[in-house]
């Protein structure tokens, strides 16, 4: 692709003054709007239907999660992280547990690591399914959302069988796992992978070849690799721009180095590419789950860790590849029972920063498509 296409569209010329002189229209989209995925508020400046600029107003779901951490013990805080990206609660839990484990410098048994990988990957699929359904709904296809929820239900059933919770799972504990897997765990996971491989074909049949879908997504919301780096955008958005960056490969954690999988990338960095990258990621996640289930080692599920978690003074930063991008946890310990300071690097929040860049010059209908394609969860944006 030549640079000319990847370059951001030039800002539209300033509208000429007319008798009415009211060419620019400022509209307020959200926080109560059908497709701002929760409580995002976007102030749009329009010329007709062309977007001149977009400004995000966030904070409607702010709960002060990072401050709460300072008043809870390390174990007590673990369920709170599930409430940030509640669509991918397992990944949040994984990131937090790993950060504290790094502070404690404790070895995690292999079985625990493998189960963590399995659950995190199933959660990635569930998160992508929710994204696909709502994204298609934003673009006007009302059926995929129900199909996606049908499959997501199977993923949630696996979580429910494993730990009793469906959404905010709190599946992991610092040092390993709380529960041993149930008897049909392996079978359920493999059945889910087979189901997904089959159902992906159905989604592709509904959307990928559809002319309207392609027209609505190709060339929309382009963000090239350089811009992604400028804005700190990670995850599928970055990979769709052609950058082969996945923390599971770049800095393997929790035993990801043992599994054979590809990092799907695309070239143009538009909405269609992000769609294709995420669809392919589901296939790759299935591959990882299959390998992990087949090679699931026996052994303990919890590392050597005391009942009271009191890390030595120090700090730790751990970042993992969450479904939406790089999810980082920075924990500072002063040697007491509570974290001295905890900071989260949420992928949704950082990725949302590029909204204005992606929206400029497009139409109102594209804005909802772009919000959908960034794949944000407001619980994580606002924390």
């Amino acid at each position, binding site marked *: 692709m030549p640079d000319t296409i990847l370059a951001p569209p030039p800002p539209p010329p300033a509208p000429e003054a007319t008798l009415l002189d009211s060419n620019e229209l400022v*509209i307020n989209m959200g926080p109560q709007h059908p497709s701002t995925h929760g409580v995002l508020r976007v102030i749009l400046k329009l010329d007709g*239907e062309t977007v001149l600029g977009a400004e995000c107003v966030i904070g409607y779901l702010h709960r002060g999660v990072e401050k709460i951490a300072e008043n809870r013990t390390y174990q007590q805080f673990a369920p709170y992280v599930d409430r940030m990206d509640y669509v991918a609660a397992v990944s949040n839990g994984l990131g937090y547990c790993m950060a504290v484990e790094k502070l404690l410098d404790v070895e995690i048994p292999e079985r625990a690591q493998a189960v963590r990988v399995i659950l995190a990957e199933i959660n990635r699929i569930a998160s992508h399914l929710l994204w696909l359904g709502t994204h298609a709904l934003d673009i*006007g*296809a*009302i059926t995929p959302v129900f199909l996606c929820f049908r499959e997501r239900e199977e993923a949630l059933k696996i979580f429910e069988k494993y730990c009793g919770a469906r959404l905010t799972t709190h599946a992991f504990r610092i040092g390993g796992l709380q529960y041993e897997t149930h008897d049909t765990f392996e079978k359920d996971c493999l059945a889910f992978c087979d189901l997904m491989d089959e159902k992906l074909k159905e989604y592709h049949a509904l959307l990928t070849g559809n002319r309207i879908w392609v*027209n609505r997504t190709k060339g929309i919301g382009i963000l090239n690799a350089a811009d992604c780096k400028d804005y700190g955008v990670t995850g599928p958005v970055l990979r769709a721009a052609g950058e082969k960056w996945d923390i599971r490969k770049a800095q393997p954690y929790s035993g990801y180095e043992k599994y054979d999988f590809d990092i799907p990338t695309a070239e143009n960095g538009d909405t269609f590419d992000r769609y294709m990258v995420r669809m392919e990621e589901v296939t790759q996640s299935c591959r990882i789950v299959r390998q992990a289930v087949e090679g699931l080692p026996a052994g303990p599920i919890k590392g050597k860790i005391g009942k009271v978690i009191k890390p030595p003074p120090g700090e730790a930063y751990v970042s993992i590849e969450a479904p939406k991008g790089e999810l980082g946890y920075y924990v500072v310990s002063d040697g007491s029972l509570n974290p001295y300071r905890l900071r989260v690097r949420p992928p949704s929040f950082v990725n949302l920063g590029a909204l204005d860049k992606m929206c400029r010059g497009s139409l109102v*209908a594209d804005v909802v498509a772009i919000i959908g394609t960034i794949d944000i969860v407001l619980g994580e944006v606002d924390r």
Partner: protein
Amino acid sequence: MEELLSSPYLPPLVATLLIIALFPLVAGYMVLAERKVLADLQVRLGPMRVGPYGALQPLADALKLMLKEDIIPSGADKWVFWMAPVLSTFTALSAFAVLPLSDKFYVADVNIGILFILAMSSIGALGLILGGWSSNSKYSLMGSLRAAAQMVSYEVPLGFATVTGIMCAGTLSMQGIIQAQYERGVWGAFDNYLLMLIPTVLFIIAGTAETNRAPFDLPEAESEIVAGFHTEYSGFRFALYFLAEYAAIFVISGICVTLFFGGWLRPFPNVGFLETPLNVGLPVVLFAAIALACIKGATRQIITGFKLGMFGLAGAALLLAALFAVPVINPLIVGLFWFLAKVAVLVYMFIWYRGTFPRFRYDQLMDVGWKWLIPMSLGGLIVNSIAQMLARS
């Protein structure tokens, strides 16, 4: 009394009253059908609570809409706001005046019937535009701007497709168009060596856009501009817009059926030996099957009232089946049966698209309209006129 009964104005008056009284109910059940079909496409059940299998849902919805507070936003242009849904509903319903529901049951057969319908549906667009404009809301305004652009653009291919159909029939009268298809022994859609399929398909596409149905539902694109032109409407006025939308769907399907699918004619109208199996056998079997399905459904109901209701429906269906079996009554109602059956198929198609396609974007919609549909409809007109000249000279 004698004088009244023999008055030439009596049948149209009765038909008019029947249409005005019954159409809101029909529209309500079209909504229910839409919800049920969509639910079927989307692995859901749809309404199941009000009445057996949700059969009374439309009544509950209508009651709710009538009882809701009628909010007029401050800063709205009150009179225009008040009038706009009325205008939409009035034009949509008045188009029924020339719709040939059957050979016996219609309000009027005027010699410019189809022009009247097109005129009325054009004025109907005004209701959307005014409603959005008078709401004093930016989302409504955007919705009505989209409605204006879309309806103006798509009226052109719709008009050309209609002209092709009229050309094929050689008359503007709705009954005359059906009569012409009877005389030629072929439905409009398959005339001129199947070349008439071009305007048929274009008519269905442009008709979908004209009635603001998905994938052309930009004026009320929920995920983009909240609810478009009727964002600020509530209660009964909202219900009127709903009614107008479904009336428009019915009318567009009705015109399509009349122009291209033989109106109230049965399939193969000139094949004599099909008379009994199609005109008597099919409706009887169909309604008997519906009755059986209702009885089967009744056995699954737990609530006694619902059970009785399902048996009642089964009884009604059986009664209809019996009516079609009576030789005296059959010719009176079989035309209506075929017309409504064909309209139902088209309405099902409208719902089917809605469950399948994503929405077009504003500029793409215009592209499709101006760059594809209009040239194609013009081409269809030319090709068909040549074919017709060759075939009929």
